[in-house]
């Protein structure tokens, strides 16, 4: 029985000696050529270490003034100090609360709307061109307006995060839904299912891995909009601390917080990726 796919022939014939070695060497730099996981990690770590070393050397040799670029040690010490006196934790809490609420509101609205306009052409006609138009309005241009509307409250942060992520999410989720194979919908029809059930039992589950990916990507952008909102109008949060530090020439705090924001983004992305893998592990398309 054809339980196994047909046996694949070895694509490269026997190669010997020098030619083989040359071929191997060339292959590791070919387009899409595989490299060992350990090698990948080694290269990645080496780049980080190299940059860190350059930073350390540049400040250690006093090639730049500390006010422009403080030493790694100074940045670490400053972060430690801010952690010890509780400032860092307060800033973190404020920012994480804002991004969570803002992102959840945007996602809670974008998922149903994206599914709707991805499935029904009439809704697409009503909503897609409008969303596409708003999407091209720069988020930064909304900042003054958001302050007029919502002051420097948390609501203003939610609003900026919402404007920055919602419109992008809607279009991407529409695309995720449109990518559901037409024959999946055809299958639902041949089983006599009504549209509502085709949507909930076939279209949404089928688009879910893609939607999850959209959420993961847009969460990355949400960090940017959060910091933007906090930079211009806030009394707490990571972005606020960066602005204040600029006023007092605390470059070490600024750089420490920027690095921290990078770490937070990386961590949330990795968590989302791992969750997605666990949730959709059967889905060969994810």
């Amino acid at each position: 029985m054809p339980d196994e796919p047909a046996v694949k022939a070895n694509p490269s014939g026997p190669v010997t000696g020098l030619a083989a070695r040359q071929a191997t060497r060339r292959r590791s730099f070919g387009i899409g050529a595989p490299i060992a996981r350990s090698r990948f990690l080694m290269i990645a770590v080496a780049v980080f270490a190299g940059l860190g070393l350059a930073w350390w050397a540049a400040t250690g040799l006093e090639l730049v003034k500390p006010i422009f670029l403080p030493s790694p040690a100074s940045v670490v010490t400053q972060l430690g100090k801010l952690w010890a006196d509780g400032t860092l934790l307060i800033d973190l809490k404020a920012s994480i609360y804002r991004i969570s609420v803002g992102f959840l509101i945007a996602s809670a609205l974008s998922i149903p709307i994206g599914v709707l306009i991805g499935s029904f052409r009439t809704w697409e006609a009503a909503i897609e061109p409008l969303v596409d138009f708003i999407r091209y309005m720069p988020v930064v241009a909304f900042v003054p307006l958001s302050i007029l509307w919502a002051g420097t409250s948390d609501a203003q942060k939610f609003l900026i995060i919402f404007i920055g992520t919602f419109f992008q999410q809607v279009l991407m989720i529409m695309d995720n839904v449109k990518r559901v194979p037409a024959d999946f919908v055809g299958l639902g029809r041949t089983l006599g299912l009504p549209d509502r059930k085709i949507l909930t039992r076939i279209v949404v589950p089928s688009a879910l891995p893609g939607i999850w990916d959209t959420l993961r990507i847009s969460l990355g952008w949400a960090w940017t909009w959060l910091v933007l909102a906090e930079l211009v109008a806030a009394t707490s949060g990571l972005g606020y601390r960066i602005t204040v530090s600029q006023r007092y020439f605390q470059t070490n705090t600024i750089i420490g917080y920027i690095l921290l924001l990078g770490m937070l983004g990386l961590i949330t992305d990795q968590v989302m990726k791992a969750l997605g893998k666990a949730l959709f592990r059967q889905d060969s398309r994810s």
Partner: protein
Amino acid sequence: MNSPKLRIKGLHKSFGTGARRTEVLRDINLDLADNEFVSLVGTSGCGKSTLLSIVAGLQDFDSGDLDIDGSPILKPGLDRGVVFQSYTLLPWLTAQQNIEFALKAAGHDRAACRRIALEHLDLVKLPRSANLYPSELSGGMKQRVAIARALSYRPKMLLMDEPFGALDALTRHQMQELLTQIWEEHRLTVLFVTHDVEEAVYLSDRIAVMGIGPGRIMRTFDVDIERPRREEVMESAAFMDLQRNVHKAIREASRRPEMA
């Protein structure tokens, strides 16, 4: 002779409107008797898949009559089981759950769903793959589950749109043999679309050759080859003759009578 299972009478179909309107099917007449296996063959663009899709109720048609057991086909439904060319197993469900999904839609209770699903996995010779996900199945196995799913809810007829078109030659042969076996044991009305003439001759009772510009049925061939058919039958003179004739008919039918 009883009234036909499926009756297609004077069916017309066009795509688009106004100046962009193109006729894809012209005056299609075809009856399928109860338990008859009929193949539609023809070059690509002859509208054979469109015709099957119309019978499935997935596409509209402009005029003509289309009925199954005397009642007109208005929309898709459980009286016609469809096997698509593309893999349509839902990736988040196991092989068994995919069949149960269809049975549930057909209104069976849980216990019945499970029992019937397992029976049909046996039927397509996949008794040990019940708990595997589509990503763990080969292309041939996926199509076998799809066939099991389409048979499970006992439709009046089976519609198959190049179901083996994406498979490699070896697997395709095995699938053809399996399908013949199932059909010979269980008997069912089947409308089968393919561009593989050998496949059509091996499986069918009758072959309808379609021509292009616009699509219509040019000729039908009765396949008078004894059943049960096993692979050796493909070597017989009768088989090869018929295959040659069908090929010739397709070539003649594919000459465009008018430039489109």
